[in-house]
């Protein structure tokens, strides 16, 4: 039966709330966050070479503090030299 296969509802309530609350608190929609990511990639690319497809931007919370966490892998310098 389906309800035995699906995970219990409390964990899905918590996961959904985590996402909703972060966006409520920051007033940032997922679309705006994507836009922010694209602009960030452009700005950083002007100074260093990065891997645009591997860039990850997340909103995390620690208690009631929100944090914008960006993981931006740099393109390897040796590759640029040989290329």
């Amino acid at each position, binding site marked *: 039966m389906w309800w035995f296969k699906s995970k*219990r*509802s*409390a*964990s899905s*309530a*918590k996961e*959904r*709330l*985590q996402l*909703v*609350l972060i966006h*409520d*608190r920051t007033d940032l929609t997922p679309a705006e966050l994507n836009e922010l990511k694209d602009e960030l990639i452009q700005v950083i690319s002007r100074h260093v070479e990065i891997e645009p497809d591997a860039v990850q931007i997340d909103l995390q*919370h620690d*208690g*009631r503090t929100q944090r914008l966490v960006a993981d931006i892998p740099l393109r390897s310098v040796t590759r640029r030299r040989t290329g």
Partner: protein
Amino acid sequence: MTAQVVTISSGKGGVGKTTAVANIAFALAASGSKVVCIDGDIGLRNLDVVMGLENRIVYDIVDVIEGRCKLRQAMIRDKHLPELYLIPAAQTRDKNAVSPSDMKRICDEIRPDADFVLIDSPAGIERGFRNAIAAADRVLVITNPEVSAVRDADRVIGILEAEEKHSPALILNRLNPDLVKQHDMLSAEDVLDLLGIKLIGIVPEDESVIVGSNRGVPVSQDPKSRAGQAFRNIAHRLKGEDVPFMDLDKQGGLWDRIQKMAGRR
């Protein structure tokens, strides 16, 4: 005597604000404090009926503000607890009859003569809510372990932070320990983790709460009620006493009994 002004808010309606105010007020008054409750829900008066005082209303808070009576005249004394009073909401449709400064003025007038002023905030985050928190020394945010109630509680907490109110404390109301055990209800830990504020009480779901409201005698007067015990504990914590949180597992729900019979516990 300088009263502590405590406002109970939730954002979402129907999570148990009025019931909590009535119960905590009865518990405080029964343990010797002088308590004045204010129904902050102008136009939708209901704290009076939960407290069983609906037949005694002559004046209301708008009468006080508009100078038709003295503050004392609008304070209805409880039938059993002589140190418990209610200032009822008006039934007028004009929500703008009360302003944040009116609430501050009324609370300041009560402060020297009471230990606690408990304000029942209306649902929502508009004028009535703003009035209710204007004079508050402390705000208790009440929620249920349910997605919409938690989300709205978070909005209220955000507004309180922006207003730089002393950090609010959480009442988690209507927790069903059996559902939590089955992982089909957010646990107290889940809700605290999501909202990131400190806890002042967990009230288990309890049929006796409805019975109490029906009679106009809040359940905190019933020594056998689990929810009543939880509300009494909140009252003690408001007085600064260190009361351990109840072990809700002791309740021995149906699921527990089945598991015991099946020899699984």
